[in-house]
C-alpha cells in the first residue's frame, strides 16, 4: 500500500507553478509514476503531497525552435521513440528510448521524470549529455536554464528546487557533419537496468577530423559523467581505429563505479572501454558512409 498523501491536480502550467510555490517543500511532481510510485510502495519515499503534472499540455510536445530541438518535460519515452524530430536530430536519445524499460512503462515514463529521478543508470541522461542538452527549470517567478551536466549532482539528487518543474529539455540541432549513438549493456535483452551505458556525439570538420566530441557514461559513477579525457583525445584526430582505441582507453578515468547486484566495479571499468570503442566505431562508420548519424 502507498503511504497517504495529498494530491494536487493543476489544470494549467501556471496553476502548477503556483501550487509548487505555495506547497514547497512538501510537494513532489508526479508524471508517469514509474519510479516514484515504486519508491513509495517500497517505503523509500513518502512525500506529503504529490502534484499531478501528467495532464499539463504545456509540458508536452516536441518541436524545432530555430536552431534547437525542444522536448517538453512531460514527453513520454514512447513519444520520444516515435517522433520524427528525435529520429532526425536526437538519434542517441531515440536509441536509448527503445531500450528503456518496456513499452508499457514507456507509455507512462517521461523524460523529465527519468532525469529528475537521477538514477545513475538513467538511460536518457547520457544521450542528452552527448547532445549537449540543457534543462529548463520553471518556477512561479522565474525560469532558468542549466546544462544537464550541472543539473544532476549525485545519486537521485539534482539541483531541482522544491518550487520548480523540469519544463523542457533542449539541445542544439546537431551539425550536419556529425554522428551520434547510444550503447547499453544489460543483463537481458529487454527491460533491463543498465549495467553500464554510453552515448557519444562526434562532429568533424571539412577534412574529416574531429572538431567536437561529447562522450557520456551512465551507471559508471554516482551520476552520468562526461568522459573528458576521452573527448580530448579525439579532438583534431581522424576517427581511425588507433585513435578510437586510445580514446576508449581513457574512458575509465571518468568512471567511479561500485559493486552492486548487477555487476562489479571492475567489470564496469572494463566495459567502459569496450562499449565506447564500439560506439565510436559505429560513429566512424556513419561518418564514412556519409550518413549524418549512426
Amino acid at each position, binding site marked *: 500500500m502507498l503511504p497517504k498523501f495529498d494530491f494536487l491536480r493543476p489544470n494549467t502550467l501556471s496553476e502548477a507553478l503556483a501550487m509548487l510555490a505555495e506547497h514547497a517543500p512538501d510537494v513532489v511532481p508526479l508524471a508517469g509514476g514509474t519510479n516514484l510510485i515504486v519508491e513509495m510502495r517500497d517505503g523509500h519515499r513518502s512525500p506529503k503531497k504529490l502534484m499531478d503534472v501528467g495532464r499539463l499540455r504545456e509540458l508536452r510536445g516536441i518541436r524545432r525552435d530555430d536552431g534547437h530541438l525542444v522536448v517538453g518535460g512531460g514527453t513520454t519515452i514512447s513519444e520520444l521513440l516515435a517522433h520524427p524530430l528525435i529520429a532526425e536530430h536526437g538519434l542517441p536519445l531515440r536509441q536509448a528510448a527503445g531500450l528503456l524499460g518496456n513499452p508499457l512503462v514507456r507509455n507512462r515514463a517521461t523524460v523529465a521524470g527519468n532525469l529528475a529521478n537521477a538514477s545513475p543508470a538513467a538511460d536518457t541522461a547520457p544521450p542528452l549529455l552527448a547532445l549537449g542538452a540543457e534543462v529548463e527549470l520553471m518556477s512561479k517567478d522565474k525560469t532558468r536554464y542549466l546544462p544537464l551536466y550541472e543539473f544532476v549532482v549525485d545519486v537521485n539528487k539534482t539541483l531541482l528546487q522544491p518550487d520548480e518543474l523540469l519544463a523542457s529539455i533542449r539541445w542544439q540541432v546537431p551539425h550536419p557533419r556529425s554522428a551520434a549513438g547510444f550503447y547499453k*549493456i544489460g*543483463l*537481458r*535483452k*529487454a527491460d533491463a*537496468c543498465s549495467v553500464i551505458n554510453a552515448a557519444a556525439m562526434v562532429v568533424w570538420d571539412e577534412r574529416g577530423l574531429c572538431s567536437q566530441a561529447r562522450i557520456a557514461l551512465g551507471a559508471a559513477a554516482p551520476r552520468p559523467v562526461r568522459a573528458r579525457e576521452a573527448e580530448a583525445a579525439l579532438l583534431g584526430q581522424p576517427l581511425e581505429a588507433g585513435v578510437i582505441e586510445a580514446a576508449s582507453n581513457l574512458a575509465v578515468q571518468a568512471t567511479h563505479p561500485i559493486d552492486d547486484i548487477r555487476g562489479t566495479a571492475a*567489470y564496469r571499468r*572494463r566495459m567502459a572501454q569496450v*562499449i565506447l570503442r564500439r560506439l565510436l566505431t559505429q560513429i566512424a562508420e556513419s561518418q564514412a558512409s556519409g550518413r549524418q548519424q549512426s
Partner: protein
Amino acid sequence: MSRYTAKQLPPTNLPELRQIGKPLRRVDAMGKAVGSTVYAGDFSLPLMLHAKVFRSTQSSALIKRLDVSNARAMAGVVCVLTAADVPNAKLVSDMPGQTGQKQRTGSDVPVLASDRVRFYGEPIALIAAETLDIAERAMRMIDIEYEPLPGVYDPLEAMKPGAPILHPPDNVVARWKIRKGDLEKGFAEANHVVENTFRMRYQEHAYLEPEAGVAWIDERGVITIRVSTQVIEHFRSIARAVGVPQNRIRIQGTMVGGGFGGKEDVTVEIYLALLAKHTNRPVRLVYTREESIFGHSKRHPYVIRHRTGVKTNGRITAAEIEVVSDSGAYPYLSPYVLLYTLVMSTGPYRVDNLHVDAATIATNNPYTSAFRGFGGPQACFAYEQQMDAIAERLGMDPLEVRKVNYVRTGDTTATGQPIESAAWLEETATRSMEALGGKTPERGPIKVGQGFSSYFQSYGRIMWLHDTSQAWVGVELDGTVTVRAGVPELGAGQANSLCQIAAEVLGVPLDRVSIYCTDSAITPLSGTSTATRQLYMSGNATLMAATNVRKVLLEHASKTLAAEIENLDMAEGRAFVKSDPSRFIDLPDLAKGCAAEGSHLASLAMFKAPFKDPIDPETGQGPVFPDFTFGSYAVEVAVDTETGQITVLKAAACHDIGRAINRAAVEGQIAGGGMQGLGYALMEDLIVKDGVIQTPSLSEYLIPTCKDFPTTTVIILESGTGVGPFGAKGIGEPSLTPAAPAVASAVADAIGIRIHELPLTPERVLAAIDGAKK
C-alpha cells in the same frame, strides 16, 4: 549443414486415435483468455479479513523478546498469532500430503518460530485485520528483539566440525549412496581418468501468480481454504497442525498461475486456516512479489564432483560421483531431491562400476525444495559437461563418445533398475542438432558455438511411496460427460488431458466434456501435480474409469443395435456398428436407456503405480521410478568475448514423449520448460549474501522476456512405449532438464573453454576467458 543427421527411428505401430494427439482447444483456455477464470487472489467474501505474515529479518538468531501487544491493540486488528498461541502448529516438511511416512529429526517445521529463527524470512507472527492497510501498519507495531547467533551459509562449511548446527545432532539432513560393481577394477581398466567439479546455484520459481488464498469456516464449521496449490492432500497435515479432524478441513484448489514446484509444499493455506479458526471470519492472504521470493522454497544449489575412468574408445569403465546440496534452514523435500540426483547421477549412460555419495546439508540459507526437475537438472548439468570433457580428452566427437555409452532398453540405471521403455537417445540428439543447421558465421569478437545435451528424467513418483490416483467419469443423460478428479491444474494441461482422454474413449467432442477438479472434499483424490505424474497417474485412472463406462454403454448398445460388442465403436456422440455405421444410437438415448435399466453410467477408478520397497541403503540398488523420458536439447550461441554476454541464436528440443495427448500442450511444455532452463543457465541469478536474498523482485531476479531467446524448434517423437495412457510418457520436468548443459556445451564450442558453474553470467564468462589466457 549440421554435422549430424537424424538417426532413423524404429517402426512404431501407434493406433490411430480421433482426438488424442490433436491440438484441440483446451477446456480451460477460453476462460483464461477472457479473464473470467478466478484465481486464488480473486475471491472476496463478506466480512473478509486481510492477513499479513510477519517474518524474521535475521538469518540466524534467538528471539529474545517478541511483543505483539501494540499490534493487537490497533483499531481494526482482529487477531495476532504467535507461536505461543499455536504451540502445536507444526508441519511435516519432508513429503507433501503423505500418510505414514517416517519423519526425520528436525524435519517438522514450526508454523511460527518461537525461540529461534533459522533463515531470513522465517514466519514469526500472523496478523488479520479489517483492511490490508491496517494489517500492514500493524506489522510495524510488532516489537521484536533478536540475539544473533553464528550462522553458516555454505554447505561445505556446514559439514565441518564446529559449524553452527541448525537441527541436532548435525547438519547432514540426508545421505544416499550407490555401491555397484568394482570401482577399483574399473579405474584400473581405464586409459584415462577425467575429473571435474560442477557448481550450480539457486533458481527462483518466479511464477507470475504470487501465493494467494482465502479461507473461511463454512456453515457446518468446516475450515474451507481456496488456495493456489499443487497439492490438495495437504488438508491432512493442515488438519493436524490446526488441531481438527481430517474430514473437517476442505481445500478447494484454484487454477494455479504457475507452480513449478514452488507451490508443492504448504504455503499460505496453513496461515489461512489458523486465522480463520481463530477469528471465525473469512481471511484473505496474498503475497507481494517480494514476500513470495523471500517466503517460499528455491532450487537447490549443488556441488557435484565427477571422476570418470574411460577407455580410449570412450567406454566408461568406472565413475565416482560426489554430490552435496544446500538444504537451507529446513529439510522440506531435500532428501528426495537428492535421491533424484542419485538415480540420475550418471546420466543415460551405462556405468557398471559406480560409487555415488550424496549428502544434503542444512545451512541458514533460504530453504530449498521442489523445482521442476527436482535434482535432475543439476545432475544433468554435471554429467553432460563431464561427457563433453571426456570427449575433449579423447579427441572424440561428443555424440560418438555418448553413443558408446548410451543406455538402451533393457540396460539398467545407476540404481540397477531396468529401462523398459524406448530410450531414443541418439535419435533425439541427432534431431535436435540437425535442427540447428550449419553454424552462423562468426564476426570479430563474437564467437559462435553449437552444443547439445542428452538426458533422461523420471516421470511418476518414487515407487516406494505407493502412489495412487483416482478419477471419476460419468455420462449425463444428455450425452455430455463429466469428469471429477482432485487434480490441480497448473497450466500444463493436467485437467484438459483427462477430458481429452474421456472424450476419446467415450467418443464425444472435447467441448462436451466438463471437469470438476481440485476439491479435497468432493473430487476423488488424484494426488499431487508434481513429479511429472498427473498424466501417467490420473490419465490412467481416467482411462480406466472412462473405459468402464464405455463397457456399460456398449453392452447396452450391443443389445439395442443387435451387434457384437467387438463390432461397435463410439465417436461423434454416438455408438455405431463399425461394419455398418448407418446403424447407430445417439449417446443421450443410450444413456437414458442405460439409466432406465439401472446400469451405472459412471465409474470411479483408482490407478496404482507399481508399489516397491526403498532401495538398499548400502548399495543404492533397486527400482525407483515407474519410467523415464529421454531426449535432447541443442543450442547455437554467440559469445561476445569482450563483454562475456551470451546470445542464444537457435534452440531446438527433441523428446520422445511416448504419445501426445494434446499436441499444442506438449509443444508449449517443451518450449516453456526449455526456456526456464535457458533462464537457469544464463540470467537467473538469485544472489544470497549471509542468508539474505539480495534480488527479491523481478527487476533484480531476471527471467526471460520474449526478446531473450529465439523460438525453440520443437520436435516431438512418439515411441508409444510409456506407461501413461496410450503409451504416453511425461514432459513437464523433462523439458527443462537438458537446457543448461546444452548452453554450456555450445559456449565451450564457441570459446574453447568449459565453464563448470551456473549461471553463465557475463562476468563469469569473462573470468573464464581471462583465466584461460593465463
